[in-house]
């Protein structure tokens, strides 16, 4: 007998011959969970519910919600005559509801199956999972920022525009660039914005039809080639060299009147600063092309070097990486783009301008003295993220941001030094930036893969590093500790990876290939998910019908 929580409604004795007999799908699932407890390392004490103390099984909303339940008290309006012109919804929607306490419990339980920065070290390379200060959350929720509408009269949002202007000033000062487009909604959207500015500049010079090639090193993020292709550029790869660097000769070899731009990540995804970046920029500019820099790894050099000084024409800044706005399980992000003098006139609308009577918002290309290429999004971008990022910058200050970059680089190198004798560094044991890249050569003949190592790390209480990226390295493991980790935390992490490395080399394969053993789920079957996609919940077929 199941109650509405999808759980047995009355305790049943253990030791029943077939406790699942006669139960529906859900009960069988529960029983399965109980069996799982029995089969696992901690399973000598199976539980009736399948729960294991704080580790709770939580059904889907659709399995526990009711169509007549609502957790929001709203009074029914007085009778009215509809003005929908006969387009009223006639069919049921199919949305179950929960009361407030049930809602709270449902989502709290879901949250407990997640790993976050606040849970432990989150060394995801190129993702910069640094501490998310709650001051920033509080600031973003100030009514003057969170409860203002993007199309209120400009006279009623002067403080919001001031904040955008101030954020822009900080970003321009840190990068030594000329203009900033704040509106892109995430990193890839920022890339698109920067590449659109480049395309607009090329078209303005009358080279729109002839310059259509974008050079992208093999080590680049997938978003780079995808972005270039999205707006009609032809992507030409620049191969990786054995030292992990992009060489100016390789770039020069590919330059010609057909090249519009290079998309270079610096520091690059191998965790290295490109030593020839100034020469590359010079060569690019001499060929009449532009230098797009992927700013995903800006956290290594904030306050240490300015991209504008390196010859960059456009660079997006992931506020959700470098400036600590929360990743939120995959967003929202924010990807402002800084532009050089050569590209500044093409920045999209909207942007903030300081006028005689305060801040102005230029929302139409026709109102701009410049030549905006268009608009990236409705309204003005990710204000909530602007507030958090500025709060971060104000808190750190110029000295704190420089220190943060130095600590991020120091921490990554400390990990490198602690592991270089056991794990393999594809480009030799040389200083890295804020992330250190290992390959899987050290796993040779162990029968253990990079994926297995990642899953074994989960059992040890860590989020795995970025794996199999960049593509230029076999079985890549990209570790970015960020500046938020203490020395004690790094010491334990290094010791753990050393232990894992020794175990792999000593043939303790099972620790890896079966991992994770202790996570809320064992390894999930991704092939099955892709082969027969189930992308939403559907009501189970009633037993009687299924039998027909």
């Amino acid at each position, binding site marked *: 007998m199941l109650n509405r929580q999808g759980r047995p409604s009355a305790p049943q004795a253990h030791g029943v011959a077939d406790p699942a007999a006669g139960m529906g799908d859900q009960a069988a699932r529960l029983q399965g969970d109980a069996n799982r407890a029995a089969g696992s390392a901690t399973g000598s004490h199976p539980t009736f519910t399948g729960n294991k103390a704080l580790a709770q099984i939580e059904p889907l909303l659709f399995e526990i919600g009711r169509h007549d339940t609502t957790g929001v008290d709203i009074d029914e309006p007085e009778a009215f005559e509809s003005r*929908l012109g006969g387009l009223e919804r006639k069919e049921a929607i199919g949305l179950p509801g929960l009361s407030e306490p049930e809602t709270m419990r449902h989502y709290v339980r879901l949250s407990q199956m997640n790993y976050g920065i606040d849970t432990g070290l989150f060394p995801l390379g190129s993702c910069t999972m640094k501490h998310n200060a709650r001051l920033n959350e509080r600031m973003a929720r100030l009514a003057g920022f969170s*409860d203002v509408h993007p199309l209120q009269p400009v006279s009623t949002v002067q403080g919001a525009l001031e904040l955008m202007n101030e954020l822009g000033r900080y970003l321009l000062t840190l990068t030594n660039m000329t203009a900033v487009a704040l509106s892109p909604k995430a990193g890839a959207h920022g890339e698109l914005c920067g590449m659109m500015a480049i395309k607009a500049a090329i078209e303005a010079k009358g080279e729109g039809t002839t310059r259509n090639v974008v050079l992208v090193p093999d080590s680049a*993020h997938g978003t780079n080639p995808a972005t270039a292709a999205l707006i009609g550029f032809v992507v030409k790869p620049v191969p990786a060299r054995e030292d992990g660097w992009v060489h100016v000769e390789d770039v020069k070899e590919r330059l010609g009147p057909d090249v519009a731009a290079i998309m270079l990540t610096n520091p690059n995804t191998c965790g290295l600063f490109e030593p020839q970046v100034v020469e590359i920029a010079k060569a690019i500019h001499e060929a009449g092309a532009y230098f797009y820099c992927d700013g995903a790894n800006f956290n290594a050099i904030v306050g240490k070097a300015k991209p504008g000084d390196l010859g960059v024409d456009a660079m997006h800044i992931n506020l959700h990486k470098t400036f600590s706005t*929360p990743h939120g399980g995959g967003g929202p992000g924010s990807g402002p783009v800084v532009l050089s003098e050569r590209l500044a006139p093409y920045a999209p609308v909207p942007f903030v301008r300081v006028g005689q009577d305060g801040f102005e918002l230029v929302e139409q290309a026709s109102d701009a003295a410049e030549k905006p290429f268009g608009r990236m999004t409705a309204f003005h971008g990710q204000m909530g993220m602007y507030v958090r990022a500025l709060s971060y910058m104000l808190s750190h200050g110029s000295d704190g941001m420089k220190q943060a970059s130095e600590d991020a680089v120091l921490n990554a190198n400390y990990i490198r030094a602690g592991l270089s004798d056991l794990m393999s560094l594809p480009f030799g044991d040389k200083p890295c930036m804020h992330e250190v890249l290992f390959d899987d050569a050290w796993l040779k003949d162990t029968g253990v893969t990079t994926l297995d190592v990642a899953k074994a790390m989960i059992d040890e209480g860590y989020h795995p590093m970025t794996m199999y990226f960049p593509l230029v390295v076999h079985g890549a493991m990209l570790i970015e500790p960020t500046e938020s980790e203490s020395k004690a935390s790094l010491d334990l992490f290094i010791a753990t990876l050393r232990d894992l490395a020794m175990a792999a080399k000593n043939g303790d394969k099972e620790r890896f290939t079966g991992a994770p053993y202790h996570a809320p789920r*064992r390894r999930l079957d991704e092939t099955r998910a892709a082969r027969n996609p*189930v*992308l939403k919940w559907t009501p189970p077929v009633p037993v009687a019908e299924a039998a027909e």
Partner: protein
Amino acid sequence: MRYLPLSDTDRSEMLARIGVKTVDELFADVPKNLLLKEPVDLPRRKGELEVERILSRMSSKNVAASSVPFFVGAGAYKHHVPATVDHLIQRSEFLTSYTPYQPEIAQGTLQYLFEFQTQVAALTGMEVANASMYDGSTGTGEAVLMAHRVTKRRKAVLSGGLHPHYAEVVRTLSDMASDSVVTLQPDVSGTEDILSQIDDTTSCVVVQSPDVFGNVRDLEAIAEKAHKHGALLIAVFTEAVSLGLVASPGSQGADIVVGEGQSIGNALNFGGPYVGLFATQSKFIRQMPGRLCGETVDADGHRGFVLTLSTREQHIRRDKATSNICTNSGLCCLAFTIHMTLLGETGLRRLARVNHANAIKLADQLSGVKGVEVLNKTFFNEFTVKLAKPAAEVVERLAEKGVLAGVPVSRLLPGAGLDDLLLVASTEVNTADDRAALCAALKEVL
């Protein structure tokens, strides 16, 4: 610095372990002349209290929607969000997690994404939904690109009732990709002849309902004509609450439904972050942009969820991907999902009825104000009024009186000769006093 755990002693020990004397030795690859010796020219670190003072000062210069009679809409709507929503989305495990690439320790995120996809599919009347886009406008741009992939044609027809910012986003993207776009004239009355624009070269027709002027549009005939010519109907909405009362786009024949989900669970935030909803038919899933969460089992046979069909995505396909999108709106979909769970079908329908009823009351009261003419025959919770004076000027005067009256059409469509039109929205937050205040202020100004 309160966010940095390393002490100077730690740093010295770590440098020694690495085998360098100074941290700048680790920056040896940065050209020497470009490595900054001093902190950049910005203020030094500040304590929490000081940061709070600075940002509170800026915040207090803005007029918060809750503090005044508020009727501003046009793509972003002031709704009441239950306290539970904001509490839950700030749980560390949701707030500080990453994209669920390690599903064994991200089942929380993945399960709510699966719930979100199911809710969005139901709400839009479609077979499948993705795990969100950045917002409604960028989602619309992606929908057009998807239609081009499906139909292998490259011409979009945009209704004159499509939000002008959305239209501009589509045009910007299309211009850059050398695709063609036909934008119809602004359609205040919702009576444009879009059918005659559809032919065998059309990839998709993009129609918003309720449209930017508030008209509820009948999509069936458009869908029929589009399908006859092998084109797709992209149905757009900017007010998700309307779907609680208005016939779903799916039931009217839409092929792709895309819209703004801000209204449910999310604050106004001066324009972002918001959450784009994106739904379509199962046969198109491999052409869909964005992340998808799917059901599977783990090694012990237990149900679990993973990101799936990633062979469409940039990190696998690079320049052959369906989209360059990577980040989505994770936490905003969570807010949407929690609010929708609290509402349930019963609550959503009631909320939609309250919105509609409030807007009707407002329209009727405004019709009684001299110099104000309500233009809409149909609407949900927003409509267009014609004023005896330029709307931008009136809005400014009303703001001085502490009433935020709406969006002048001239702000969205300057130079279109629609300077006397004002978009007025009314949701559940508006009281009888708010309506009276708006009418009284208009009487004074007009």
